[in-house]
């Protein structure tokens, strides 16, 4: 049945993808060695002096590095949970919407913020939450004194996470919507005839039907556990919220302003990759063990 002949064809099919990957992803990976060098462009990667773990040691010798790591992880985890759940809820709501005429316009419009970069969106968000902005105007109706939202340490993380979800949920919901369509409608019909209510069908048919998609996305999103989103934070933060909003990437960026620090940036990139890889491997193994499902 599975003849060996097929294998050759399989290789042929995979070849373009892997060649592409080799040329543009694997070959540039030699740059990872920069993390262990004091990189000097004039000497190049082959001749720059080796300094072992000095870049990492330097990073961890900074007094604020713990705070920066905590900020990064809290913001990133908040985002990845939010970006997993909110789009799912939205997709389910849209799926249940009975006025079918509205489905397409809603779906088209909610994904618009995704197309604006944070440079543009950043100033819009700051204006919306500004002292004279609409949010404060609304609050003043209820007699609340104007709040300087982006000057508050305690509000910065929720604002960053919230605005990130707002930007992306319409777009992220697309995968769920695609998964929802692959659930056989006859299952719903049969259940409805059996008298199962909307909620029961959600629990017993819809959610199991998209379970694998959710698990897959959850595990893949772990790859971003140290990526809190440079562009967004850079365009929103200020010295008042350093204590809750300064992340690894903004920290490296500021270090680079004083002196061009190529090796440090590479070292940080490597650290992030290693952490992501460990998390993904672990969660892959756990998912396999407990659900018996290999996500890839």
């Amino acid at each position, binding site marked *: 049945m599975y003849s060996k002949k097929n294998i050759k064809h399989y290789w042929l*099919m995979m070849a373009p993808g892997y060649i592409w990957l080799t040329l543009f992803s694997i070959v540039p*990976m030699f740059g990872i060695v920069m993390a262990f060098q004091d990189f000097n462009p004039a000497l190049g990667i082959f001749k720059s002096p080796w300094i072992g773990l000095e870049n990492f040691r330097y990073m961890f010798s900074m007094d604020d590095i713990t705070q920066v790591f905590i900020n990064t992880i809290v913001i990133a985890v908040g985002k990845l949970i939010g970006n997993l759940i909110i789009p799912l809820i939205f997709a389910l709501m849209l799926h249940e919407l009975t006025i079918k005429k509205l489905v397409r316009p809603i779906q088209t419009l909610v994904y618009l*913020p995704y197309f604006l970069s944070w440079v543009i969106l950043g100033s819009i968000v700051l204006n919306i939450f500004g002292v004279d902005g609409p949010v404060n105007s609304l609050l003043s109706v209820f007699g609340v004194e104007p709040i300087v939202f982006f000057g508050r340490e305690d509000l910065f993380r929720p604002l960053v996470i919230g605005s990130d979800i707002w930007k992306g949920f319409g777009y992220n919901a*697309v995968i769920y919507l695609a998964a929802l369509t692959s659930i056989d409608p006859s299952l719903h019909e049969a259940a*409805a005839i059996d008298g199962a209510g909307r909620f029961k069908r959600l629990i017993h048919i819809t959610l199991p039907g998209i379970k694998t998609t959710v698990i897959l996305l959850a595990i893949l999103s772990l790859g971003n556990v140290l990526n809190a989103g440079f562009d967004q934070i850079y365009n929103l933060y200020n010295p008042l919220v350093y204590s809750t909003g300064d992340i690894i990437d903004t920290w490296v960026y500021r270090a680079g302003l004083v002196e061009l620090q190529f090796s440090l940036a590479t070292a940080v990139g490597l650290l992030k990759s290693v952490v992501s*890889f460990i998390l993904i491997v672990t969660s892959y193994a756990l998912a396999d063990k407990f659900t018996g499902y290999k996500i*890839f």
Partner: protein
Amino acid sequence: MVEHKSFGARLFNGVNATLLILITLLCLTPLWYILMISVSDKAAVNAGAVTFWPIGFNLLSYQKIVSEVAFFTSFWVSVKRVVLGTAVSLAAILMMAYPLSKTSKQLPHRNAYMWVLVFCMLFNGGTIPWYLVIRGYGLIDSIWGLVLAGSLPIFNVILVVNFFRNIPGALEEAAYVDGAGPWRTFIQIFIPISAPVVATISLFTIVGYWNEFFQGLVLSTKQSNYPLQTYIQQLVVNLNLSTLDTEQIKQISQLNNRSLNAAKIFIAMIPVLVIYPFLQKYFITGITLGSVKE
């Protein structure tokens, strides 16, 4: 599907619809804001006075865009990039995903191939080596650089692999019995059945190429080779005035036009708005897989 409309169901439907409409309005704010800025008087815009209604309504910005050659040059670069890129990416992704969705028995070392993918998704050598390599390939200022340099979107491959894996094996066996080889099975059975996921990754690929601006900047030596988002990005980034000399400050104060920029941003979103509904039907209406579904 005939449903009994109880009060609870109707209440749920009403609340659900209302919430969705509110959410939609919330997502419309930035776009509306940009539109208002693009049709408002420049001075009012610079003073930050425009929020939700235009001040000094005019269409000057849209008239001006017509004479902006650079805008249309970049627009065309982006269109070429999206068309070429989507064709190349989609072909590579789908062709790669099909064998990878097989078991280790059918494709020896399948798991190793898969982990190579995951590895490549997570590790990279940083911008500098990447740039040096692309330059070594001679892909600077080339449309192929813009198409290929982003490398293969591995996330999409994994997505498709997962979708393919859920297609019942019986279907494939039936095809083999009919004498179809791997290519025919792939093209005539797997791809049509996977319309939702193909539509999804098409959308991701199109949007990915359309939105990308950093590579456009790094891989182009002049503005006429910039894709549209790179072109827009250079206009809207805030400059730190104190690092500029007086001539530059003078230029910026004379030339910066936020209304015009807003109009460009707005127009740059239109193609996506046009394309989306075409793909949308595949992941909203759902397609009946009928008997093939487990």
